[in-house]
């Protein structure tokens, strides 16, 4: 392995590890104020929204533009997940719809 590649991988590993590590280690040892805890409860839903919605309205280069292929696949998955509460089913359904739409779009 070239030295530069070694630095690259170890450097990336370190800077990725630290933000994963510090809150887990320190916050588990501190008593958080009730209000902060309440705020943390909203992190999962806001993080997931921030992952899902830009995917539907931004292209690969980061320009805002409706993604019809993604959007049309996403809507049935939203509805199915809500009704059926089934993760496997949602993933498979999403893939099948996305694949089928590929023949049309």
């Amino acid at each position: 392995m070239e030295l530069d590649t070694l630095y690259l991988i170890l450097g990336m590993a370190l800077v990725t590890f630290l933000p994963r590590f510090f809150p887990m280690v320190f916050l588990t040892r501190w008593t958080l104020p009730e209000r902060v805890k309440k705020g943390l409860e909203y992190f999962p839903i806001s993080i997931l929204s921030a992952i899902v919605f830009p995917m539907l309205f931004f292209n690969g280069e980061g320009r805002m533009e409706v993604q019809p292929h993604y959007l049309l696949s996403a809507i049935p998955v939203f509805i199915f997940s809500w009704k059926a509460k089934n993760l496997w089913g949602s993933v498979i359904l999403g893939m099948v719809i996305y694949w089928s739409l590929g023949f049309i779009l």
Partner: protein
Amino acid sequence: MDDHQFKAGVKAALPIVLGYLPVGMAFGVLARNAGLTTWEAGSMSLLVYAGASQFIAIEMISKGISWFPIVIATFFINLRHLLMSSTLSLYFKKNRLRTLSLLSAQLTDESFAVAMSDTSKISNRPGYLFGLQITSHCAWITGSVGGALLGGLIDHKSYGIPFALPALFICLLVFQVRKIHHFFIMVMAGLSSLFFKWAFPGNWYIILTALLVSGIGIVIEKKLIPSPSTASGSGEPLARRGEGEPARRTSSLAGGDRGEK
């Protein structure tokens, strides 16, 4: 470490595996094209284990950019894990440093999302989260090495594969909507993330959205919903809070903390 919990975690990871194998494979192929060896691609997936930043690193390598700027870019892309690690810390009090290091090292968007879909399963159960994460990590490494060795066995743009992880995220987002005000939180977070992504370069939109929306969430909860912290003494509102959301154990968890300290 509890064997039963570990197995439950492994099982919960399978939808992630379905997404990670082909995407990892795509990473392996691109890494080889950019001049990395199979061994290097595999080490990166083992030690870094963060999909988006690995793809961006490969893109930067093929443009001839040196290691240092790539490491800096990686740091900013993966800074969002701070939020997820903070959230997970609520559920792992009183665990040893070794356990916490191991759990935090393998934290990804996908495993976090699955873990959060039923927090009663992770609450002080490192075995479950470990099973979930190690399985996902193995799938990522297997995919990467497989892709680097064999090339794209399957076309990762085919069979709906590009939509496997998006569908996973959509479903897990829907699972987070447990009460009516969660729906508004979701819409608000969706709109703010679009605005932040449009307004700021890079990956800041996830962090900015989470901070803004959780702030709004605190205010809404305070204004519209009787505070559980003032009501927890009577026990009745706590029980009502728990009703219809068996997955959510945070209120009882918060109560437990107060007892421990």
